[in-house]
Structure formats: structure tokens, C-alpha cells
């Protein structure tokens, strides 16, 4: 059963008399527990697709079933609930609230939850989410006291805190160096192994190869959809040190 089912999705932007077709008929089904990448150059429509998948935008035509519900007919308020409950977001630029502790940043989605959680529950769940990304010891730190990788991990904890069905990551490694990128991908792979569906938008094929399915967009259409054997980030991290050492050795011999 596909957790995400897109049928003939189109999205047209109108600015005055000019109409731009960002998506021109997307059919896509993603099964539960899959780690998929969406690739494409700028203007290919991948951001638009991501916005629709994230229930931030609605398609001009077509249907979108998310976790069995046709969300393309939902009102704004119901969409907000879907974003809160079913989807976890990770952004390229982290989007953490400044001058607010990591813990409070992670608590944020729970404040908007309709589940009537107690303050204690909110606190405990945020703490658990931070533990999952290995930052429980940094709970009291503000974002400006954390490295880029740590900030992105706080953002992942924030995405996980509502226990969503699907994690949407928009260029999650775009602002990070290669090694930190690997660490973030490693967290994604671990979460995926535990059953979380992950959809990641990226324009780097280096990053896309860690996922098991690569969907490529061009001019608002899917031009390729491949299942691949994912590279394990864990292994890449272990090899990283050797590569590093080799480079230094080379420098020395040169």
C-alpha cells in the first residue's frame, strides 16, 4: 500500500496573464518504509512537488492521497493538522528559532498539536526526540551555540517529535560540509531502517545514491524513476577516516 499516491498532479502558477506550468502531470506512488530521493535541476518542479507533498501547497488538478486520505480536497485547517501529525519537515537552512533552546525548538510542533498533551508529555517527547539524534546533552543550548550539523540534527528531532508517518527533507545537506552531510544521511538511514518513510529532495547525485529509489524530474515531468542499491552512510563514514589519512599522506609525499 502506497503511503503517498499522486495521480495526474499538475500545478500552474499565474502571475498576471502569464501562466507557468511547474508540474505537468505527475503520477507517483511511494510505499511505506521507503527512502526515496527526488532529483532535478532548478526549475524542474521539484520544489513545487515538495510543497504539494508537504501539504503546504495544493495541486491545480489531480489527486493526492497521503496515508489513505485525499488531502487535495482538504481545507487549510485540516492541512495544518496533516502537517503537524503526518509529516515531519527538515529544511536546507534548518529554520530553528533563534535565541531559543534546542529543547524548546523541538517542542514547537507539539504546542500546535490537537492532542491536548500535558506540558510534561511535551517535554518528555522532545527530550526523547533529541536522544534519537544524539543531542540530549545539548538540550539547553541555543542554536547559535551549535554547529551546523548539530543544528540540522535538532531540526530532525523537531521533525520526529510528532512521530510522523513520513519525513520530508528539502536539500537537508545543502548547507553542510561533506562529512557532516554523511552524518545526517546516516541518521536518515537509521530512521528508515526502523520503518520511517523518507522523501528527500536534492540536486546532488552523491547524496541521492544513499537512497533506494531515485526519482528525477525535468520540466515538471518525471523522466526517470530507478530503484538502486543504496550506499550505506555508516560504511562511508568508516572509510572517511582512511581517505582523510590518504590525502594527508599524499600531501606529505608531494
Amino acid at each position, binding site marked *: 500500500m502506497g503511503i503517498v499516491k499522486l495521480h495526474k498532479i499538475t500545478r500552474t502558477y499565474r502571475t498576471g496573464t502569464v501562466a507557468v506550468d511547474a508540474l505537468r502531470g505527475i503520477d507517483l506512488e511511494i510505499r511505506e518504509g521507503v527512502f526515496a530521493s527526488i532529483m532535478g535541476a532548478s526549475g524542474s518542479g521539484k520544489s513545487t512537488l515538495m*510543497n504539494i507533498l*508537504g501539504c*503546504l*501547497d495544493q495541486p491545480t488538478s489531480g489527486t493526492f492521497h497521503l496515508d489513505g486520505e485525499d488531502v487535495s480536497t482538504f481545507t*487549510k*485547517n485540516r492541512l*495544518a*493538522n496533516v*502537517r*503537524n*501529525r503526518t509529516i515531519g*519537515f527538515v*529544511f536546507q537552512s534548518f*529554520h530553528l*528559532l*533563534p*535565541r*531559543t533552546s534546542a529543547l*524548546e525548538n523541538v517542542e*514547537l*510542533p507539539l*504546542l*500546535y*498539536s*490537537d492532542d*491536548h*498533551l500535558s*506540558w510534561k508529555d511535551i517535554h518528555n517527547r522532545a527530550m526523547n526526540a533529541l536522544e534519537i539524534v544524539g543531542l540530549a546533552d545539548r538540550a539547553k543550548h541555543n542554536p547559535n551555540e551549535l554547529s551546523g550539523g548539530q543544528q540540522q540534527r535538532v531540526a530532525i528531532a*523537531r521533525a520526529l517529535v*510528532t512521530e510522523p508517518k513520513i519525513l520530508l527533507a528539502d536539500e537537508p545537506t545543502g548547507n553542510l560540509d561533506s562529512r557532516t552531510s554523511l552524518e545526517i544521511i546516516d541518521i536518515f538511514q537509521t530512521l528508515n531502517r526502523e520503518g520511517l518513510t523518507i522523501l528527500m529532495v536534492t540536486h546532488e547525485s552523491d547524496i541521492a545514491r544513499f537512497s533506494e529509489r531515485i526519482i528525477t524530474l525535468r520540466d515538471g515531468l518525471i523522466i526517470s524513476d530507478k530503484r538502486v542499491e543504496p550506499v550505506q552512510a555508516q560504511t562511508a563514514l568508516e572509510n572517511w577516516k582512511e581517505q582523510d589519512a590518504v590525502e594527508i599522506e599524499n600531501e606529505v609525499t608531494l
Partner: protein
Amino acid sequence: MKVSAVPYVAFKAMRRNRMRTVLTALGIVIGVAAVITMVGLGQGASSEVQEQVNRLGQNVVLVFPGSRQLGGVSIGGGSANTLTIEDAHAIRDEIPEVVAASPEVRSQRVVVYGNRNWFTRIYGQSHDYLQIRQWPIESGRMYNEEDVDRAALVAVVGQTIVDELFEGSDPIGETVRVRGLPLEIIGVLAPKGMSLMGSVQDDIFIVPYTTAFQRISGRSHAMVINVQVYDQESMTIAQEKITDLLRERHRLAPYQDDDFTVQTQEDVAEAATETSRIMTVLLASIAGVSLFVGGIGIMNVMLVSVTERTREVGLRLAVGAKSPDVLLQFLIEAVVLCLLGGIGGIILGVITTELIATYAGWPALFSTEAMIVAVGVSAAVGVFFGFYPAWKASRLDPIVALRTE
């Protein structure tokens, strides 16, 4: 959304931007403080006026001489010599509603005691003047009718005279000189404070009117006749009777105007109260304008803050905040800002009022009403001026908001 989370989120956002919060609230602080100070001073003045009026005495009617005509030109009320001592006696004796009547004559003279002297007003009054004015004696006694009849050389003095001439020591039995005339001080009046017109009432030197007319002022006519009426209800009748009596005594033909004026203390008080009331309203309006400006300041800052925090709003919307949640957050921020400003304003206002009252020597009156109104108004200002920015924030498109740098 969790109900208790709404104010929590608003407070967190305000704490994150302490400087902005403080500066924004400052406008309201000053506005509210201004309202409280102005209303405080204004009401203080009003109540002072009221008190002054009461101090004038109960059921008092004042009879002034008419204006004197000089070649057809009036040269001012009270300038004519139309009221005699006999008029005063007639008023007292012939009108049943009248309890007491004191013909008054004033002159400015230097009073000498030892090597000290003091320039003051000397009042000639009847023995029942203090009863008319409801002015108690602090020590000694008031001169009696017999003293008046024989134009005794005695005086009753106010607190200022005691301070200036006797440096606070007991003056009773001491003799002072006015133009070489020796006067024995037999009583000291209780302190009374400022008058309606701002003069020091305690700077007073009272002698029997007979003494004043014959030996000090050199005048033969009363400047005012102070009349006390039996009770409040008889005031109007007494006024009419006094008018009739004096017209008859002055032999005025029906076509002639009165050559005197009969006024009640209420007439005098009304004018004074009205003036101070107008001042209070005027001051409060000016303060209100500054509160309004403070409100516009809040709207301005909130609008800037919404633009500045577009990304934050985008993120909140992305993680599940609904439009009303965002609207409420910003609205609460604005209202809390205004309420904090209101409380700060009350504190500042009370301090300012206290300072002005102390240093300028003005009376001040804190009214709880003014404080409640000021805080209520500032909360209303918060809702009113906070709504548009909050509405704007809640209408943001999360996609656009998230992409804003």
C-alpha cells in the same frame, strides 16, 4: 492548539527580543504615565478647590460694593463706597435668616515686633467673623463684641505672622505695632493653607473692624460684608432679602441698578471648579494623545516585527500552526506589551505625580479609576493596533515565508 501554549509562545517570542519589547512598551509606559500624572494633578487641583470652597465657610453670602461710574465708565466692581457699617448691622438685625454679618476692611501695613517687621494684610472684622469662616482658634481667644464696641487694641493673627514675627514662639500677650499703634495679640488662628487664588491665607492679621476703620485704614466704608445665613435652604431668600434691604437703605429708585453685588460662595466656587475641571480635561486629552501615539508605535513595531519574523511564521505554519494560532500569538504579544506598558506607566505615573506634587507643592490625587481606565485603554490599544499586524502575519503563505531570507 493547546490553550496554555498560546500565551507561552507569545511570552517566549517577547523574551527572545527583549530590547524590542522594552522599547515598544516604552511608548505605552509614557502614555499611561502621562494620563495618570495629568489626571492625578488635575483631580488634586479640583479637590483642593472644593476644599477651599468649603473652607470659605458654610452658607456664606458675600456683599460687594457696586462699581463706581466715572464719567459714564465703570471702573471696576468693589470700588465704590456704597456699603456702610450700618448696612452690615441692618443685614444682621433685620433679616431673620442671617446669623452673622461682618463688615470687612482691608489694608496693607507693616507690622513691627521688636526689631522684626512683616508686611501683611490687616483685616477689620466683626467678632463673629471666625464663625462665618468656620475658622478655629488654635490658642488664645477671639475678641468679643465688647472689644469691637470699644475699638479695643487687640489682634488675632494667622500662623504666618507667628512664624515671621515671633519665629514660632508663643505670641499671646505680646504687643506689636502698626503705624505706631500698639496692638495686643490675644489669639492665634489654626493654619489654613493656600486660598483659591493661591495666596497664603495664614498671612492674616485680624482686628476689630471698629479699630480698623478708626485707627488703621482711614476708610469709612466696608469693602465686603461677610454674611452667614442660617441654613442652605435659606440662601436664596436671604440673598433676595439682602438685595431688597440694601436697595431700600440706599434709596435706589426702581430704574436704578444695584450699587452692590450679592454673591454666594457657590457662585465663586463654581467658577473656580469649572476652571480646574476644564484644565483636567485638557491635560487628560493631551495625555490621551500621547497614549494614542504610543499605540501607533506598537503597531509600527509589530508590523516591522512581522516582516522580520516571516521565516519564523513560515516555520510555525509548516509544523502545524493554523492561521488563528498565529493571529492569536501576535495579538497576545501586542496586548501583553501594552499591559506591561500600562503597569510600567502606572508606576512611572505615580512616581512622577509624587515628585511634581512634592517639588512644585501642588496637591495630587491618585484615582484608581484613572489607573484602571489607563490600563484598560492600553489593552484596547494593544488589540486595536496589534490586530492588523497579527492578521497580516496569519495570512502569510508558508511557502513564501519559509523561502524568505
